[in-house]
């Protein structure tokens, strides 16, 4: 196989007839010090599709060779103890990352930032549990168990606050799928034109006829390294006889409720809570802003677009982890919420026995998070997310 971790120029020949297929770089790794923990070799072939194809075809003819299944390398690394569950999850995200913010958050996870935090929590929980158990199991001996309930509760509260803080971390799903920005407002306010300007292609049909957009239209785009999903919606007006348009308006209202950020292209008085006010079509003659606080934009001339993008990026910060911080998957968030609940109950409990019980519940939730309990479900969920070869 050659010396581990040293690249060597090799001739790749077809085992069937010895034909030269390519001259490639071979880079061997010896387990357990490899990505999967097993013996590995990488061939760096020339990039032509035909070269890769002929090498893979030759390999496929070998009895014990096959293509890796989606996620198989990561799965093996996990099974062989090279990475833990949270790191595997981060790695999955890293492979799927398309924008800079996704990459940064996934890398933090893959680097074990959350895992390390969980480890410190685990140590602290076990320390607290030990203090309680000493009092429960050795109270007949004077040498142990003199920690007061008050002191234990103080430690619990401190840990509780720490976990609550961690829960403010952004959602990994949101970061993966994109931050939902909904454009809403009355018909003919210029929503579709603005959407097209934001995503840079003709995603929505634009016309002067009110009610052209009947269903919600979604477009995904990365701006400033952050993934956004823009949704154009049917214009909201009080009266329409068109059944389909009415359905579209219902969907529009649902989209607004569900949005992370709403761009409101209508009068200030009707603005949904927290929406960014947009005064669109500022290039039109005789244009009057509907509100003084609105961002005036023209999708046609590009006026005000920079200000709009800046406002979007500012709002989006809440969903993007800071440098070196992590985001949380739903599974991780639920487990931390369960721990937080248990600690909250523990901190107001007088019965030492029930304090111990709450700590036990917290430790169990934590164990579930790093994969100790409910192994099967957890693995299925986790590995169903892999859709790449490595």
């Amino acid at each position, binding site marked *: 196989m050659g010396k581990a971790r040293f690249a060597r120029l090799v001739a790749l020949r077809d085992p069937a007839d010895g034909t030269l297929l390519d001259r490639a770089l071979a880079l061997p790794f010896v*387990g*357990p010090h490899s990505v999967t*923990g*097993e013996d590995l070799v990488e061939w760096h072939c020339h990039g032509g599709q035909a070269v890769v194809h002929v090498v893979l075809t030759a390999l496929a003819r070998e009895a014990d060779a096959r293509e890796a299944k989606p996620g198989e390398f990561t799965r093996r690394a*996990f*099974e*062989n*103890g*090279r*990475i*833990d*569950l949270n790191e595997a999850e981060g790695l999955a995200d890293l492979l799927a990352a398309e924008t800079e913010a996704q990459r940064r958050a996934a890398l933090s996870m893959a680097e074990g930032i959350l895992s390390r935090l969980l480890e410190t929590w685990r140590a602290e929980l076990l320390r607290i*549990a030990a203090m309680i*158990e000493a009092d*429960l*199991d*050795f*109270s*007949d*001996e*004077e*040498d142990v168990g003199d920690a007061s309930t008050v002191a234990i509760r103080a430690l619990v509260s401190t840990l509780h606050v720490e976990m609550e803080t961690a829960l403010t971390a952004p959602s990994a799903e949101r970061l993966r799928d994109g931050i939902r920005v909904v454009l809403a407002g009355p018909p003919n306010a210029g929503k579709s034109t603005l959407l097209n300007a934001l995503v840079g292609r003709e995603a929505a049909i634009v016309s002067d006829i009110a009610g052209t957009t009947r269903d919600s239209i979604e477009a995904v785009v990365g701006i400033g390294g952050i993934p956004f999903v823009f949704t154009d919606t049917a214009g909201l007006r009080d009266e329409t006889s068109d059944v389909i348009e009415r359905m579209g308006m219902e969907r529009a209202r649902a989209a607004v409720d569900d949005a992370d950020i709403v761009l409101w292209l209508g009068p200030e008085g009707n603005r949904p809570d927290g929406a960014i006010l947009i005064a669109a079509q500022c290039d039109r003659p005789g244009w009057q802003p509907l509100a003084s606080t609105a961002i005036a934009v023209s999708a046609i001339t590009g006026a005000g677009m920079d200000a709009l993008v800046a406002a979007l990026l500012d709002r989006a910060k809440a969903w993007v982890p800071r440098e070196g911080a992590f985001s949380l998957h739903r599974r991780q968030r639920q487990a931390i919420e369960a721990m937080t609940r248990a600690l909250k109950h523990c901190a107001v409990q007088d*019965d*030492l*026995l*029930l304090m*111990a*019980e709450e700590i*036990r*519940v917290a430790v*169990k939730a934590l164990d579930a998070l*790093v*994969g*100790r*309990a*409910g*192994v*099967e479900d957890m*693995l299925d969920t986790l590995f169903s997310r892999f859709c790449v070869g490595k």
Partner: protein
Amino acid sequence: MSSYDVIVVGGGHAGCEAAAASARRGARTALVTFAKSGIGAMSCNPAIGGLGKGHLVREVDALDGLLARGADAGAIHHRMLNSSKGKAVQGPRVQADRKRFRSAIAAMVAAYPNIDVIEGEVVDLLVNNNQVVGVKLGDDSAVDGRAIVLATGTFLGGRLFRGEELLTGGRIDELSAIALGHRLRALNLPIERLKTGTPPRLDGRTIDWAALPEQPSDSSGWTMSPMTAGRQLPQIFCAITRTNARTHDLIRAGLDRSPLFSGAIEGRGPRYCPSIEDKIHRFGDRDGHQVFLEPEGLDTHLVYPNGISTSLPTDVQLAMVRSMEGLADVEMVVPGYAVEYDYVDPRALDRRLALSALPGLFCAGQINGTTGYEEAAAQGLVAGANAAAHAIDLAPVTLDRASSYIGVMIDDLVLQGVTEPYRMLTARAEYRLHLRADNAATRLGPLGLEWGLIGAERRAFDAARADDRAGIERDMAATYSASEMARSGAPVRQDGSRRSLFEWARFAEVGPDVIEQLVPSITTVHPDLREEILEDARYAPYLERQAAEIADLRQNENIPVPGDFDYESLGGLSLEMREKLMLARPQTLAEAGRVRGITPAALAAILVAVRRKAA
């Protein structure tokens, strides 16, 4: 030549319970012991019960074992430990008159018509076709048996240490089972050494009791077994003294003559019951340690100083005790000593406490690496019941972690092995809220009945108790509105709610007097049963939550791992994990997950391999 279904080797707490459980299941049983007079002897502290241990006593009692009734027959001092805390961690503990306890146990064993007590030393196991078929005694006679329970305590390869002295024996002035120890080693069983110790015994007439604070017995009337009608003997008090700076100096000066520090003892001792020299060595900054002076009986002057187990030379021991308050002129009747003995790595056992390597051979008590009369008795009961099952083809007796402390202990032993003598602690039981000492009969009575472990007297008692319980549960299911509760004298919040009395019972405003007034039947049942039901009510929401968790656990126990699973060729396991799994041989994925040090990644690898194999 005599022939039995089950032969029990050893007449201590494990051996007696094993013989009795085997006999209750109908097996013809032989109990082989060095001396009949040693049956039911307490080698160390004349106390039974305590935290975690009291639970085991009550569980053994619920399965109609001997220990609790023996303890009641000898009890001269009662303490309910943790009495200010929740019932789940309360531990009943009694001090028993050594002589009366022993004779009560011996009488109960003698009352079984199908137990023969044989005096002798077992020197060999008779094996045929890799199956035990009997034992050979020291006089060369053979006893045939289809199943054998080894309950050898500290006698297997027992060696006693005291200063520079080295004696052979399992207890002071008694023999050691040397030949049997050699025989077991020859069977290639994983045998290692453990160590324990005992303090000197003092002459109570030479103690200045008046100078010391007293510790009185509990005044309430509880007993270890609900079958016992109240306290049998007069209650005595204990006294408390302390070690001091001079004591510590004397001990430090003698350390170089202690076999613990000279390297003579190779076995590991218990961390939670350290010798006094260990305490001084490890916690040097403490200015003193409590010592409880516990009388050993009503008609003996012997006093057991609890807290100063030691193997220091006799002269150092005497100087040490005399340095303490109240003991200036004390006479030492028997000096303390350390004992080192063989144990079999319990990971070689299955849940029936049978040795997987040699069908028909069962082990119970200190031979499995545990310490304590209660732990021994509980294992004896399980091993004896299963030896009978093996011999006369009955259902096995196995208990899981959710059912009992017995189940917790056996699960721990067969999966984790031991690194020090194993002692029960309530912290070991994750379903502790449910596993209380006071509800052992409710938890285990029906199982015991199914297994044929319950004798006639206990059966009648259990049936009556179950009736009482059902009656009260019926009455407490009646619903009351908040205003009705208020009229009955419970100042509950008037929120218009309507609940069963069982639900109301967990509110602090609803005192026992209110319940008694609404359910008069609760005042006529045994007070233990009343307490049990009220405690159930108090913790009901938590018990429900745990019940859901237990259901989950039992689900996970349904993923089997083959007994011959090849850990060697499974990638990604550290050498240490591989070793642990090969010794523990978990039968399910849940069991594998409980083996200490097994990481989630390792568990996932096992699961995937098991599935791949099954596919």
